[in-house]
């Protein structure tokens, strides 16, 4: 017998700041309000757009386009750099508001939060009332230009879908009563987790819209479409049952850098790699971890990609450790080609100080020196003390906010 749609009262709220980076910039600069602006990683023509404003979206400007493409769509579009301090501050204020309503607040990214209201006293007020209250408080406590989309449902998947139904500044609830109407008004690609490849896979199995997806049986999804347990998860998700309430543990720390002036000069590339290792090492040590593995990826000028990862039998903790191992991998690359992007990450994390004690106590001393250097940088500001290779490159690898989960380290 088929599983029915979840008829419980909705307890999950998904809140999404509208065009976060751009709206925040408009909040801070009143003269940008109501104008098509884009926030781009770099303001140069090839800079990638990370957030178009609501007004820019009306001209067809989307995330991922280049500044050049945006100017072709609207020649007077205003281009600005991201201001990470400003956006992080808005995020903190944003999250703080939700904590007044529920202790179960899960930031999913810099502009997205999931709030669970099950067993909370606020639940009795009704989630729709709370939603309108949050919108009002956001305008009052964060800024009058800040708006958000709110979705309410029985699970995170449907709550996110609900939040995308009426942009900007919408508030929608999906329950067992309107779920069929909602599914009939959206396409497969509108469902969170379905991209063009999954869409093609569903299409090849005779599923062309969300209603057909909902009606597909569990066995069919598991055995024919997804050929794994993923099919079972989709079967539950589509019916409003929660399967996403798992805390994902951090498995790696990584940094990358797109090089403005492409180069094959090993000294210049080593300097960049050192800075990436220093930033990565600071985050690794701040989280109280050490890593056994390191991965290096290089995108060349001709868009070919080379990468290699390696695990070692001794854990890496200091920036020096990470840099030496990264350089070891780096020297295996194709040396003649110019590099346009370089990325480094460390993985196989374990809590620091649990790795095997070294016979020679020089290791312990190096760790203590590294911790002391971190403390100096914490106290007097980032890069007060740096490795000599990093001299004169303070602003080369800029502070950026990544997509996905919010980095607290």
């Amino acid at each position, binding site marked *: 017998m088929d599983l029915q749609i979840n008829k419980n009262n909705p307890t999950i709220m998904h809140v999404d700041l509208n065009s976060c980076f751009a709206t925040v910039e408009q*909040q801070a600069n009143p*003269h940008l309000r109501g104008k098509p602006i884009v926030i781009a990683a770099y303001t140069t023509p090839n800079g990638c757009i990370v957030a178009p404003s609501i007004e820019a979206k009306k001209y067809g400007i989307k995330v991922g386009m280049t500044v050049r493409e945006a100017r072709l769509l609207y020649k007077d579009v*205003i281009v600005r750099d991201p201001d990470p301090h400003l956006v992080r501050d808005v995020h903190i204020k944003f999250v703080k508001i939700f904590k007044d309503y529920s202790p179960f607040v899960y930031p999913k990214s810099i502009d997205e939060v999931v709030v669970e209201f099950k067993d909370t006293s606020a639940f009795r007020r009704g989630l729709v009332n709370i939603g309108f209250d949050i919108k009002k408080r956001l305008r009052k406590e964060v800024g009058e230009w800040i708006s958000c989309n709110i979705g309410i449902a029985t699970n995170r998947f449907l709550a996110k879908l609900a939040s995308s139904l009426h942009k900007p500044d919408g508030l929608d609830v999906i329950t067992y009563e309107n779920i069929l109407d909602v599914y009939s008004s959206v396409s497969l690609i509108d469902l969170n987790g379905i991209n063009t490849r999954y869409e093609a896979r569903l299409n090849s199995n005779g599923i062309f819209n969300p209603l057909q997806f909902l009606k597909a049986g569990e066995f069919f999804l598991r055995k024919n479409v997804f050929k794994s347990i993923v099919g079972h998860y989709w079967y539950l998700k589509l019916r409003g049952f929660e399967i996403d309430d798992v805390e994902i543990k951090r498995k790696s720390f990584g940094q990358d850098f797109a090089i403005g002036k492409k180069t094959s000069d090993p000294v210049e590339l080593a300097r960049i790699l050192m800075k990436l290792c220093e930033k990565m090492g600071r985050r690794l040590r701040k989280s109280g971890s050490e890593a056994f593995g390191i991965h290096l990826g290089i995108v060349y000028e001709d868009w070919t990609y080379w990468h290699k990862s390696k695990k070692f039998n001794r854990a890496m903790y200091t920036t020096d450790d990470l840099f030496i191992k990264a350089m070891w991998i780096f020297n295996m690359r194709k040396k003649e080609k110019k590099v346009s992007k370089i990325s480094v990450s460390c993985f196989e994390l374990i809590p620091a100080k649990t790795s095997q004690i070294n016979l020679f106590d020089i290791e312990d001393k190096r760790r203590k020196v590294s911790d002391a250097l971190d403390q100096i940088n914490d106290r007097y500001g980032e890069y*007060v003390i740096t490795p000599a290779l990093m001299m004169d490159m303070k602003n080369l690898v800029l502070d950026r906010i990544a997509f996905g989960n919010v980095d607290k380290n």
Partner: protein
Amino acid sequence: MLFVIYNLWFLFMNEMIYEKVSVITAYDKNKGTVFPKKIRWQGRDYIITKLAYYHRIRQGQALYHIFHVTDGNIDFRLKLDSYTLHWVLEEVSDGSAD
């Protein structure tokens, strides 16, 4: 004529300035807030009409207060160093395309 050119300089801009400026502030004891009321920059006075956003940045031990303000014509980003109590005008913008 000179006056016109002087004013036209502000027509198309989003400029990083990083200059020390003189600022008159108002402190509200009830709200516990500080509001920059007037800026003197390059010999001209700008009366601030609105605080658009305020936040703090901590860099090591240093604490900076960032005020995004406007006089109705130009948006200013001001930084107050809480250690030295120096005000720095970091950025000006009139919201026009570059």
